[in-house]
């Protein structure tokens, strides 16, 4: 197995970085982490990886209620929202379609463009997608929605269709 020298791999260090990213450390501890992680190239990459993992955990609904609240308070800059959106697409397209639908709605994340409130980023995208589906004008969007539907839901839908067909067949047999 190849390992990377210098990169912290202890569970304790992972937890420390997670707490740092959620600002769950004292000022002295924050300064200590920054004194090591912001000035060292290898450790800085570890910090970036820890942030990706935190975003992925958020999207997977794996954070505690407190962590979730803290995440939503801190991850609201445009660059960080872009990273969240990218992660959402990556995880969804990589075959974790359930994640795409299970994102906690960020009620606080109201942002402003040109002075007008537009609602939460995620709320608005959901609404846009719903409207497109109801308008029936975007077969591509429907196909993508189907691709992102969880296998369990697809299975239930298949069972429902089979039962309907079976019912129709029985009715046809009785009629003859």
């Amino acid at each position: 197995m190849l390992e990377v020298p210098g990169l912290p791999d202890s569970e304790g260090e992972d937890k420390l970085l997670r707490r740092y990213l959620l600002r769950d450390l004292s000022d002295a501890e924050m300064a200590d982490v920054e004194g090591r992680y912001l000035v060292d190239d290898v450790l800085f990459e570890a910090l970036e990886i820890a942030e990706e993992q935190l975003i992925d955990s958020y999207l997977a609904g794996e954070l505690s209620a407190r962590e979730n609240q803290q995440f939503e308070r801190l991850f609201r800059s445009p660059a960080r929202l872009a990273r969240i959106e990218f992660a959402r697409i990556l995880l969804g397209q990589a075959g974790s379609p359930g994640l795409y639908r299970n994102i906690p709605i960020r009620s606080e994340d109201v942002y402003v463009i040109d002075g007008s409130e537009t609602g939460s980023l995620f709320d608005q995208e959901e609404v846009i997608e719903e409207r497109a589906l109801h308008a029936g004008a975007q077969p591509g969007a429907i196909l993508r929605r189907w691709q992102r539907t969880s296998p369990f839901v697809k299975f239930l839908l298949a069972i429902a269709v089979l039962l309907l067909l079976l019912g129709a067949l029985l009715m046809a047999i009785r009629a003859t």
Partner: protein
Amino acid sequence: MGLTQEALDKLLAKLDQDRDVAGQKYELIRCRLVKFFEVRGCLFAEDLADEAINRTARRILEGAAVPDVLPYSIGVARLVFKESKDKFERRVFRPEDWPAMAIPTPDRDHKFECFETCLELLTPEDREMIITYYRGERGTKIRNRKQLADRTGLGENALRIRTHRIRVRLAQCVESCLNQVNYTH
């Protein structure tokens, strides 16, 4: 206050004699400072990072003893952060503040199209690695990663770094693709 050419030149000379190398070091410092402000939940982390660099450059121009620019600029960043709540955080977002990926658009399919296009641009090995690494949920994902580590002969950390670097390249490609799409529409 902005940065004068003289202060910028002094800063770059301090970072490295070679102007190109100095430019790379400048970007590296800026990236670290952006992270510093992002971790504190600042909405305009990039602007605050620029402010911290500008102040550092002015100190250098004024003749302050700055043995190592990065740790010094982090110290300056702490001061900027203390002032930031009143001065910088009351701004209104402008569309140009947003990366294309973060902008909600009715034509969301562009994001998926760009993602798929950029995925195709990866080497088959990288494509398989990133898809396998993120495939599945919880237990399945852990098993996939273990199998991937065994197959590639990479340790857990090395695998994390490899996929992180692929993810960064993919994200940059998607952002660039979205900018082109937005530009042409």
